[in-house]
Structure formats: structure tokens, C-alpha cells
């Protein structure tokens, strides 16, 4: 069954307290190499049959995200080979 990944991120001009908190923690833990963190939401949708791109975009932009403060990235799973962690 096809999978669709939707990443929802705050618009760049919107402040991201969560990302800031993570960045601060990384600094205190000595990971100085990381200079910026933004935190968003990650949705994995199982879609029956052939996903209708327009409908998915509608879902992503108006349901999964709040267009007033968030942007969305739509990925058909295939496009992004993950590096699964052995943990």
C-alpha cells in the first residue's frame, strides 16, 4: 500500500520555542556543531490505491498543517530513501 510522508514545519518567520529549547540542550551537552534547530511534525499516511495528489495536498495543507503558521512538505515515500537506525 502506498505511503505518503507529510512534514509540517513552522513558517520561517514564526518563532519555534521547541527548536530553541533543543538547540540550548545540545549546546549544554557539548554538541556545538549544531547551530540551528527547527522542530516540526512528521506524518506517515497509508493511502489506499493510487493517491490523488490534489486531495493529499489539500489534506496536508489544510488539515495536517495550520496554514496561518505552518508550511508543509509532501513526500511520496519513494522519493526519500531513509537511513534506518540500528537501535
Amino acid at each position, binding site marked *: 500500500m502506498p505511503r505518503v510522508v507529510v512534514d509540517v514545519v*513552522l513558517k520561517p*518567520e*514564526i*518563532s*519555534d*520555542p*521547541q527548536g530553541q529549547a533543543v538547540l540550548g540542550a545540545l549546546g549544554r551537552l557539548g554538541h556545538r556543531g549544531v547551530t540551528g534547530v527547527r522542530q516540526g511534525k512528521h506524518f506517515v499516511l497509508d493511502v489506499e490505491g493510487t493517491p490523488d495528489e490534489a486531495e493529499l495536498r489539500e489534506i496536508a495543507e489544510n488539515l495536517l498543517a495550520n496554514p*496561518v503558521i505552518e508550511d508543509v512538505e509532501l513526500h511520496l515515500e519513494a522519493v526519500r530513501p531513509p537511513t534506518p537506525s540500528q537501535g
Partner: protein
Amino acid sequence: MSERTVEHSIDTVENAAGTPDEEQPFRELGLRDEEYLRIRDILGRRPTTAELAMYSVMWSEHCSYKSSKVHLRTFGDLPRSEALLVGMGENAGVVDVGEGYAVTFKVESHNHPSYVEPYQGAATGVGGIVRDILTMGARPVAVMDSLRFGRADAPDTARVLPGVVAGVGGYGNCLGLPNIGGEVLFDDCYAGNPLVNALCVGVMKHSDVRLAKAEGVGNKVVLFGARTGGDGIGGVSVLASETFDEHGPAKRPSVQVGDPFTEKLLIEACLEIFAADLVTGIQDLGGAGLSCATSELAAAGSGGMRIDLETVPLRDSTLTAAEILMSESQERMCAIVEPTKVEEFLAVCARWDVLATVIGEVTDGDRLLIDWHGERIVDVPPRTVAHDGPVYERPYHRPADLDELQADAPPAGSADLRADWLAVVGSPDGCDKSWLTEQYDRYVQGNTVLAQPDDAGVVRIDETSNRGIALALDGNARFARLDPYTGAQLNLAEAYRNVAVSGAVPLAVTNCLNFGSPEEPEVMWQFAEAVRGLADGCRALGLPVTGGNVSLYNQTGDVPINPTPVIGVLGVHADVRTRVRGGWRAAGETVLLLGETRPEFGGSAWAAVAHGHLGGLPPQLDLAAEQALAGLLATLAADGLVTSAHDLSDGGLAQALTESALRYGTGATLRVDGDATAALFAESVARAVVTSSDPAAVRAAAEAAGVPVTELGTTGGDALVVSSAGGGVLVELPLAELRTAWTRTLPDLFGHPEDVVGAVPTGAVPTS
């Protein structure tokens, strides 16, 4: 954005002086032609882009009160109250509550933002009012919220309500402020215009009171808290002074995202800073951000102020000078600090991970000067920005439909008392509110003595002496629609009564006036009448108005909301251990009704629910009776003569009996005299029901206080049984049936909490 293109070639004062004919987008910024001309008059040249930005936000309705000022002045004419330490005009008023304690409290609206983005709009509303309280030098100790939504079953209410409630809770809970009460009411008129009014109360010692004042030449101006970003740019003039319409980017509201964690650190840092006496003046950054803070601080002080704007820490490096001045980024404060104390000030901020930056200093002279990379972009007399905004004498007249509305008296008799009873207590306005209140932390800080569902919130402020305060918020808009002058006073009377029911002595008043467009003469009349009524009511009760807030333009198209003056009353408990709670805990106690009942149904919950009717006149006001009742309730509490008390208001006796019985599952057998509909559903003022195991003593005290008292019956059993004088049973309601009717309404509409799947509040940050 037109400002930005102008901005890119920095518009300095010199440049402005040299280019008098330069076109400026003042209309897009919400300024009228004559206002723009006045600015040119004041400056003797055209304003720079940065100056134009400052004037436009500070002269907006929200910041300048240009439509309401002439009316609000009457609050200032009230007789000086002994208790009032700081009056209107500061961030919040301060009252003396004894033992050297001072209390500051204020209610503020965040209506339009909560419609656009319910979670963040409501959350930042709480954040803003908390900073106002903190600014006075107080530790915030509690919050309350007064909410209005469109019809409960309207689709948009399902979008707005869950987000607003999660936002109020998400922010307040994360700050560690107990939510001790509020209101939530529904009416079609709020569809598209939800109201989110948040109250915060803070406590300090008299000597700790701080003012927003820039004193002392050479003292440093320190900006601390969050970085400055593009949040809510133009939000003040747009969100708060224009109704929604799709024309023009300048009118597109922008949303601010709250960071309660940063605000919590800001609170702790400020309290440490106050304790170490490190500031000579302090101001929160709310609407109009730095424009407001710098001009208000400078205007209140004796000298001037100079700011190096490029030193402001930014979150978004692309912001222009004008945008930095207008930004409404949350969780920021501005302090005036003596040079010798700057180091210690910065150290305290560092300890709390709060970013703090010296951005300027207090100067002699009387100008507010702002430089951008060494170039002067603002050179203005601060008072002209902060206080000399336009003042309108808006025309007003009595609504054309009011006579007809008042003549349209409601039906007087109930065809089915039992059905009406269940309908009233099961209506969205009358039903159990725990669906909302369970989302609020009422325990944090460990000083909450009473909170929802009690009539008033009560907080202990001294763990040794047990001194405490009580607060209630009330805003019946049906009454105000029928008669704004009386309606405002009825709301005052209800809040006053709620505070008194807890056993507290009422002391001071705050308010948030939510109305439609002041450009509509009929709305302006409603506003003027409500203010006049509130002032007269406070005069009669001998209470000062310590502050408040005005929210106008709450209307869709040309349909305004019902006038909604939300009134907050603060009371004092010399010893909170004597507070009186709601709810019947034991069987065998006598139920007594204090006060007098008349067949008054105008604007009542019963008329609205049973007949969908709004018309006639609101109940007759009787402030003398309210005072007598309050005095009696205080005596009964102090002498420990009552085991419970509940005021009568929306829904009348039926509502009060329902809540008292269901609280601990104790029924009662009661008898009412006279017209049954009036006895159960009339909303006559100055009434309360109490229970006592010593009814004779209550009678004696009531007679001494000149308060009519009627014995209704006895608590006990698992039903509410009400008979007529003749003994015939009028209504018999098993508590189980009553509980179902009362509790299921909001869960049915917004999801049963026990369901695994709930609503997802948009924009919600994780909470725990």
C-alpha cells in the same frame, strides 16, 4: 510590502526633512488623513518611515483608546477609594488588601487573534495580561478566563472552542498559574467574533510596586526576554482595530506564537530583579511592542531617551527598523536600570537563561531618539506618541430597534416546569463546564482555596495569617443588549454577589468592554451607556475601577455582537479558613433562600432556552439590596452559620439548586410559594441560597441585615423534589437523570474525554 521598499533606503530624519513630498502609506497603516497631517504638524516635517510606523500603531484604537477615552474618563471621577494605591493609566491598578499586601489585577481581551488562530491567540492573550501584572512588581498568583463563542453546535465553534480552551490552559498551566474561574457562554452573535478575555491577579508588598517610568539621566534601557521577530507586525492596528475583510495585505492579520516557558523564566528573573531592587522603571512589551514601551517609558519620565535599534536581538535578520519597532514578539520586557546595577541585572537574567541587552539610555532633554546603525530614524516628543493620540467624540444614538425590543416582553408561564428545568440546566450556557475546566490546573502553587465550579475563585496570599482574596468575572450580554446602562450594573452586581457568597468583602473592580464598531452610532451608544452604568454602579457600591481594557470592532459585516461588558470584582478574606463553599455535603440541613423573587424573565436563560426569546427589560437593579446581602453573607461566613452558599443568577433557582445538589450528590425536598415559573426561573437580583444546621440563627442575622429570608426545605435523598405552597409536587428530578442532562452537553458536542480519540488543537505545543 510598501513600507519595506521605502525602508530599504533608510529613511532618516534628515532625509524626511529634505523630501517633504515623499508619498507615505499612512492609509494602509490605518491613519486618517487628518491624523497624518497632525503628525506632520507635531514634527514640523513629514515623519520618517519608522516614525510613521510608531505613530500608526500607537494611535490605533487598541493603543490610543481614541473612541473610548472620552467615556472612560468618568471612571476617574469616582470618589477616591482608600484602598486604591495605583489607579487607571498604569499597566494595571493596585489595591491595598491589608497586612501590607497589595494586589494588582486586570482583564484584557484577545478576541480577534483567537478567531484567526484559536490556540495561539488565546495563549498569547494569557501571556500578555500576565506580563501586565508582572510589570507592576507583583508575583502573578492566578488567572481567570471569560469566553464567548457562537452557537455551541455551529461548525466553526468546533474549530474555535477546543483551540481556545487548550490555549488558555496550555499557557497558564505551563506558567504555574492556577486558573480559578471564568465564564463560557454561547450566542450566535459571537460566531466570527469569539471573545477571549483573560484576567490575571498578582500579589506584592506595598513597597514593591513598580511603575513604567524612565527616570535618571544616564540610566540604561535594557530589553530582555525573547528575541524580536516578525510576529504580529501591524497586529495591533490590524487585528485590534479593523474588522476582517480580504482587501489589502496591510489588513491580513499575522499571528504570534507564545512561548510560556520563556515567560516563566521571565517571571522568575523579574521577581529576583525586583527583590534585589535593580530597576527604576519597567514596562512589558505588548501591543505595539517597542514603539509602545519606549514612548510610554519616556513619556512617563522627566527626561528623554535614546535607543540604538540595531542592538535589539533579532530572530529574523531581515526585519526593517520600522518592523522591529512594530513587532509584537511575545515574552519581552523593557527595564530602566542604573549603570551601577546593569551588571547584576544581566547576571540575574543569565542565571535564568533570559537574553538581556542594553539598547539605549535615558537622556536629558525631552525627545525620544532612535538610531539605526548610527543614523537617526526617530526624533519625536514621546508624549505625542504615547498619550496625545487622537480623541474622537464619536456620534451616538439609541438603537432604533430598542423600544420595540423592550416592549416585546417574554412569556410569563412555563408549560412544563420539568422539561424547562432540564432544558435550562442542560443548555450550553447552563451545563456542567468541567469539559473545559479539567483542562486548567487549579492546584499549582498550593494556595487555591476555591476555584471552579464555585461562584468565586479564592486564593490564600499568606500561609501564616491565612489572608486571602476572592475574584469573580461576569458579563451577561443579554441584559446589556436589552439595556446597556442597567446591564453593565447587573454584571457588576453579579460579580459583586459572587465574591460576597464566598464570604469575602468586595473591594475593587476591573472590566473588559467588548463591543462592535464605534463607527456605528448605535454601538457607540451602547458603549457610552455601559460605561455610564458601570461608573454609577461603582459609585453606589463605593468601589473603585482600577483598570480594564476595551475591545471594539467585534462585529461581522454590520452585525455587532451583543454589548458584552465583562466585569471583574476583587474581594478580601481576612481569614480564608472561613470561606463558604458551594454544594450540599450533608443531608438534614435547612435550605434557605435569601432575597426577594419577582416575575422577571427579560433576558433570562429560561426565556432564551424555553422560548428562544430575547426581549423586554432586564431584572430590576437593586444595589442597596446587594450590599445588604453581601454584608449578611460576610457575617454568616465569619460566624460559621452556613454550610454552603450559591448565588442566584442565570437560570434562577433551578440552576442554583441543580449545581448545589449535584456537587456532592445530595438531593433535597423543597417548597416554593407563589408563581412556580418565577420561583424557579426568574433572575431577580440580590439573591442566594444557603444551607445551615442553625436556620434560626440565619433568620435572625437576615432580619438584622434587612434581607428577606424564606425557608425552602431540607437536604437529603437522591432527588430534587419541589412542591408548591399547597403541597402538590411541581417537579421531581432524580439526581441521576439531572446529572445526565447537566453533564452530557459539552462532551456530546466536543468529544467525550474518555474517548481515546479527541480533538487536535491546532498549533498546540506539547503540554504535560
